[in-house]
């Protein structure tokens, strides 16, 4: 009893959990999780991604310590969530920060070891190598096989699945379910077997001509001492350049792909110089901030106006307020796509109607200004119901006595709005307004799904940057656009920059929230 009390005292007033079957269950769960995690970490370490492996091991260690040390019992409740967050939210963030300092991109996707290994798998048909006469076979499933006979008269049967067995005699009409293809059938199959590798790793064979097949050989050979790759097809030596992550020949050409290396602050330097040289980036930044601020304020203003219009206790007004939730409730992507259809140049309902009434319609998707206007309009449609919803709650919480006092003092409705309603609503909604600005700063899907960031800024080709791209959709385009260079390193560096901006805004919000709370306590 005395120990329980003592434990209760130092653990915040609760009795410590007693030893029971739940302890056994915990131990079992811990073993399972640790075992699974260790298996994963070991394999990922073997793969060469030491960073991820270390994060996994540290997370496991954290869980284990929390579970086993009785004094840490409050953390036990948090540990599952904590582990999931570290692995699935924090690690991707850290890894993004790591990629930001590399040249990880389309031609630099692998580590040096991986790149050398992958290149070593490439085969070529050397001239003057071993050659075979070949006959083509096909089985019922449509798979091909080759009957090969070399100059010495030895015969082999090879398939693309890695079979290469010695056989004897002349090519038969059928061999183990494979039927001989001759004449036109053989000719027609040429297209599908050209470039295919038959046989196993030591005996890789491909057809060279209608008559002969040749033995493939390894094309790229790495010499660790010289740190260079030799292309045996041409004899050119490509020396590894460990600062750019490429294998370069004396004439300046490079091997098919390189490897990724750390490039220090290069990516950040590119961001700054692009911003300084008035490149597209500065426009993107201005639009990001402009949209976040104007978009949030306009949504807030219309939402508050709607809340005032629909303020009241009659059934009608209640129903209308409920109806106004609909635009907010429709899944975001669905409504952006509906708007995209309605704004479609020429045949969308909005340009069409304007065309028939005024004889002119704004070029929403091709003119930068109108595209921005359309995005702000659609954003109002999204965010006004949200602000109306919380605004009408705030309006109802304002005591009617305040208004009565104002009326007694002879204040007009206009004055009442500016001096009473707006300040009090701002107290309640201010933090949410800032949260909305942060959200809109990162509003990716509106930019991407409405116009795909377009219309493109002239002179930006790969990847194309649009007038309505904000930082986050620009980043996405850098990393994932089909035509671009897929510059993950630069995209990640931009991600890091955005992270810091958002972080600062969030801390600001925290500060303001606290001040606002103090203000509202005084009211």
């Amino acid at each position, binding site marked *: 009893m005395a120990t329980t009390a003592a434990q209760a005292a130092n653990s915040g007033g609760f009795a410590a959990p007693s030893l029971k079957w739940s302890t056994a269950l915990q131990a079992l769960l811990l073993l399972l999780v640790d075992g699974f995690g260790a298996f994963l970490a070991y394999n990922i370490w073997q793969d060469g991604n030491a960073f*991820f492996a270390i994060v996994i091991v540290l997370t496991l260690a954290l869980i284990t310590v929390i579970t086993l040390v009785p004094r840490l019992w409050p953390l036990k*409740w*948090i540990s599952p969530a904590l582990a999931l*967050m570290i692995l699935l939210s924090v690690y991707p963030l850290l890894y993004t920060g790591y990629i930001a300092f590399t040249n990880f991109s389309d031609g630099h996707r692998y580590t040096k070891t991986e790149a050398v290994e992958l290149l070593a798998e490439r085969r070529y048909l050397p001239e003057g190598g071993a050659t075979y006469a070949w006959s083509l076979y096909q089985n019922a499933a449509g798979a091909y096989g080759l009957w090969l006979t070399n100059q010495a008269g030895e015969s082999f049967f090879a398939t693309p699945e890695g079979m290469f067995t010695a056989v004897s005699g002349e090519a038969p009409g059928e061999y183990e379910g494979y039927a001989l293809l001759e004449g036109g059938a053989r000719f027609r199959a040429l297209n599908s077997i050209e470039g295919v590798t038959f046989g196993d790793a030591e005996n890789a064979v491909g057809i060279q001509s209608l008559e002969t097949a040749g033995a493939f050989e390894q094309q790229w050979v790495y010499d660790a001492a010289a740190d260079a790759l030799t292309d045996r097809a041409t004899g050119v030596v490509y020396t590894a350049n460990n600062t750019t992550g490429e294998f370069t020949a004396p004439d300046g050409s490079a091997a098919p792909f390189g490897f990724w290396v750390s490039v220090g602050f290069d990516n950040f330097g590119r961001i700054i110089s692009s911003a300084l040289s008035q490149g597209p980036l500065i426009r993107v930044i201005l639009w990001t901030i402009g949209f976040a601020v104007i978009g949030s304020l306009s949504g807030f203003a219309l939402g508050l106006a709607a809340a005032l219009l629909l303020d009241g206790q009659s059934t009608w007004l209640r129903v209308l307020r409920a109806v106004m939730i609909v635009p907010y409730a429709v899944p975001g992507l*669905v409504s952006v*796509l509906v708007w995209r259809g309605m704004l479609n140049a020429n045949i969308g309902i909005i340009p069409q109607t304007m065309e028939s009434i005024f004889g002119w319609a704004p070029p929403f998707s091709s003119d930068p200004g109108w595209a921005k206007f359309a995005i702000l309009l659609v954003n109002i449609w999204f965010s006004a119901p949200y602000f109306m919803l*919380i605004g009408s709650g705030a309006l109802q919480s304002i005591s009617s006595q305040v208004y009565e006092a104002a009326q007694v003092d002879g204040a007009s409705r206009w004055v009442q709005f500016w001096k009473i309603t707006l300040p009090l609503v701002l107290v*309640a909604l201010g933090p949410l307004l800032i949260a909305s600005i*942060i959200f809109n700063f990162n509003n990716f899907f509106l930019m991407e799904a409405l116009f795909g960031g377009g219309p493109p800024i002239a002179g930006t080709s790969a990847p194309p940057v649009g007038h309505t791209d904000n930082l986050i959709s620009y980043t996405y385009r850098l990393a994932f656009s089909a035509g671009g260079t897929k510059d993950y390193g630069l995209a990640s560096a931009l991600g890091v920059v955005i992270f810091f901006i958002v972080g600062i805004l969030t801390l600001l919000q925290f500060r303001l929230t606290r001040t606002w709370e103090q203000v509202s306590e005084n009211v």
Partner: protein
Amino acid sequence: MSSSTAVSTAAKVAVVQPRQAPALSAIVLRAARILCIVLLLAFALFPILWVVSASFNPSGTMASQTLIPQNIDSLEELFGNYTRLFNDPQVPFWRWVGNSLFVAGGSSLCVVLVASLSAYAFSRFRFKYRRNLLLSIFLVQVFPNVLAMVAIYLMVLQIGKYVPFLGLDSYGGLMMIYIGGGMALNIWLMKGFFDTVPRDIDESAMVDGATPTQIYWRLIFPLVRPVLAVVGLLAFTGTLSDFLLARVLLTDRQNWTLMVGLYSFVEGQFSDNWGVFAAGALLTAVPVVVLYLFLQRFIVSGLTAGAVKG
């Protein structure tokens, strides 16, 4: 309190009453207000009317659409877009629905279970670094995972090599990312709700010798179950609406979620697929909207607790 409200309402009525005499300015004001309300509703609801109308437009193309569908001779024509949606072998609509329900349901259930434990601990226990931990969780939540997309993609790719059911093009991998990503926000939301449950309940049970585990499962959990259900449903609809993660991580058409599927209509000939898209969009949106209408009261309190729709 109630008496003072009654008095003040009476006073308000007394003040307002003389103004409601048929003064011209009052009539103009009233008319202006009604006009504004009508305009507001038109703006808010027109896109929705338009998509409903598009889904019943028999020719299914954007150019031929009118607000009230024309040339409908039979029920078959009226529901032509819906039959196309259900029967097109390229569009496994119900499979997409099933995928979405499975992924969103599974991940929101996990999130609510795990996050509620943490939220309870943050709400009730006092321990070292509690505040710092809470703040860090908030910061993690603010960072949009669109930016960590490359890292997430590479991570799922790597894990999938050894644990195929958590890899690319698997529901497990997608759910894993949703669970990890939704955790922080939901811990914050639920902590707010737990804070509103009086601590007296815990304390009296503690005096009787109950352990925290017992208090949570026997007393608090039954109390907050309706709230947890609401948070769960919000997490569910949030996951259902996600598009980007699902698009990057799921490659096989059969495995797509509803949102990825709907987006695929846009990538082809959007104006020709317009009717089918509208039918699919409507079928997606209606259940979510109905859910929101039912949960409106909780949503408003949840929103003011600091959440923004993401």
